[in-house]
């Protein structure tokens, strides 16, 4: 029987010729990424072991990105613990360089790998044809100590894409629309695989945005085939070579197949307090906002910033709005500086911040108060996610967020 991409990657990691959905296998992990959200907890558990050891330190990548720069003595202490441990043990360590998933994609991930990240949006690595999945710190510790873990082979939902995005819609509008269609648990325990002729029109940045958000439909991972766009990205980022390039076999078993014509996608927002609470932007125009956020591992790349400046150039942020612009990594920040993108945002009155998770995770920067409303390119709009429990978060594309920041209310970028 044929295999899906997810099955092929797990078979490789398990050292088996063939695996199939719903089998449980022990797998060798290629990377284990962890950030300052939970690493201090992993270290505490590690230190409590009778005979602590790291199976292969080359597999570990630790990234401080959630509270950068540090906002309190408590987080300073937990980051120091992480920094000291990384240094003592020779663990690859980043601090202040950007959001963990963007750093992993720019520097480490290659096609065919199986990667655990102690962060739910690890599924973003599917944009490079790698199986990334989020775990908690206990699973992380087990992988750190043994180099291995167990996985339940997921069934696959296949999304066949045709056509090209138009109508001012972006890849973010596409994935939000899909989440709205299948629901916040529509892909629970599943892999979401994207394929078809429409893929050729999607940039690497688009692909990362799509895969990154799949966990908001409950997915275990997201996967895409490797093509010229993938290979060009790897060549431009250190000339990394794939471990293996997989495509699903023609007779692979998909639990469900969705056909989506990209040209039918329109700009949408996710309304409070659920990512699957989707409506066209046109139905939400006029909702007053207090803050706008352009950034995150989902939508803080150069292409998103360029899209924002194409809308805001020569205009001003509404006086009632704080507009936070947060490039996803140092690489993105440097490029944005060279292109004059940061000048454009600052001249318009935006607040340009250092690369980090920022208000997307509701701590450190830009949290909102009681009764306030945020429109965000971040990953979630759960109740209280961005600050006070009685506040409101709408999710939209870089274009929608920027247009709304100018108008002071939710607004379509292109009409």
């Amino acid at each position: 029987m044929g295999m899906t991409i997810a099955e092929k990657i797990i078979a490789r990691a398990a050292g088996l010729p063939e695996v199939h959905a719903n089998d449980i296998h022990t797998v060798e992990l290629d990377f284990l990424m962890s950030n300052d959200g939970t690493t201090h907890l992993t270290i505490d558990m590690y230190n409590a072991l009778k005979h602590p050891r790291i199976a292969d330190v080359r597999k570990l990548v630790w990234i401080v990105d959630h509270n950068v720069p540090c906002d309190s003595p408590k987080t300073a202490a937990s980051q120091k613990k992480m920094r000291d441990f990384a240094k003592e043990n020779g663990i690859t360590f980043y601090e202040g360089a950007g959001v963990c998933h963007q750093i992993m994609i720019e520097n480490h991930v290659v096609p065919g790998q199986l990667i655990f990240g102690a962060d739910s949006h690890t599924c973003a690595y599917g944009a490079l044809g790698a199986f990334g999945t989020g775990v908690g710190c206990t699973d992380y510790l087990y992988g750190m100590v043994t180099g291995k873990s167990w996985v339940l082979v997921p069934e696959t939902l296949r999304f066949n894409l045709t056509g090209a995005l138009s109508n001012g819609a972006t890849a973010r509008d596409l994935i939000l629309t899909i989440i709205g269609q299948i629901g916040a648990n529509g892909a629970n325990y599943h892999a979401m695989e994207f394929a078809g002729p429409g893929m050729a029109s999607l940039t690497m940045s688009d692909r990362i945005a799509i895969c990154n958000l799949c966990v908001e439909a409950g997915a275990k991972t997201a996967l895409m085939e490797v093509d010229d766009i993938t290979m060009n990205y790897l060549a431009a980022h250190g000339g990394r070579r794939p471990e293996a390039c997989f495509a699903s076999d023609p007779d692979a078993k998909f639990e469900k197949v969705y056909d989506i014509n990209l040209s039918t996608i329109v700009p949408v927002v996710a309304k409070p307090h659920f990512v699957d609470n989707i409506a066209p932007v046109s139905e939400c125009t006029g909702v007053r906002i207090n803050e706008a956020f352009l950034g995150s591992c989902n939508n803080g790349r150069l292409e998103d910033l360029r899209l924002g400046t194409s809308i805001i150039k020569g205009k001003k942020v509404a006086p009632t709005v704080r507009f936070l612009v947060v490039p996803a990594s140092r690489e993105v920040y440097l490029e944005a500086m060279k292109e004059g993108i940061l000048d454009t945002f600052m001249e318009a009155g935006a607040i340009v911040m250092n690369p980090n998770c920022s208000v997307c995770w509701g701590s450190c920067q830009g949290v909102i108060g009681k009764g306030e409303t945020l429109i965000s390119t971040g990953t979630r709009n759960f109740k209280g996610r961005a600050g006070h429990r009685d506040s409101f978060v709408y999710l939209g594309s870089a274009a929608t967020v920027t247009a709304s920041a100018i108008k002071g209310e939710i607004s379509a970028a292109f009409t």
Partner: protein
Amino acid sequence: MEQFTGKVWLLGDDIDTDIIMPTEYLALKTINDMCPYAFSPLRPELAAQIREGDIIVAGKNFGCGSSREQAPEVIKALGIRCVIAASYARIFFRNAINNGLLLIENADLVKDVQEGEEITVRAGDSIRYKDKTYPISPLPQNLLDILEAGGLVRAMQRLNGKV
């Protein structure tokens, strides 16, 4: 077969990890320090009302969102005996089992049960509420082994005495 009875706290669909343990309290030093703030965005009074041995019953997609392990840890620390939900988000599911928190999947109980009522759970077999019985499927053996050891770290130590 293990059997226990507990009082029900009833929650809805899509109870996310930011509701179970909001970001702003994650910097607190211990899980016990976080306990009073569990579920606070949704029901600020709930954590103080939960007693040892109580049971949470919820709808679909319980634990969706972040990979933060403080979510199942805080539920366990509050004394919750088990969670019974129509379905679970997968990272939360793994984290709960890894921390020795029993999860049961049942989609019918949440439709019938009232908050404050008592239910009886026969592990791996069924739930009893009033005069109705709700069958449940046992977890796969590898997960039962982890639960039985008291979580993944202990299971790992048992597998390999050197760790």
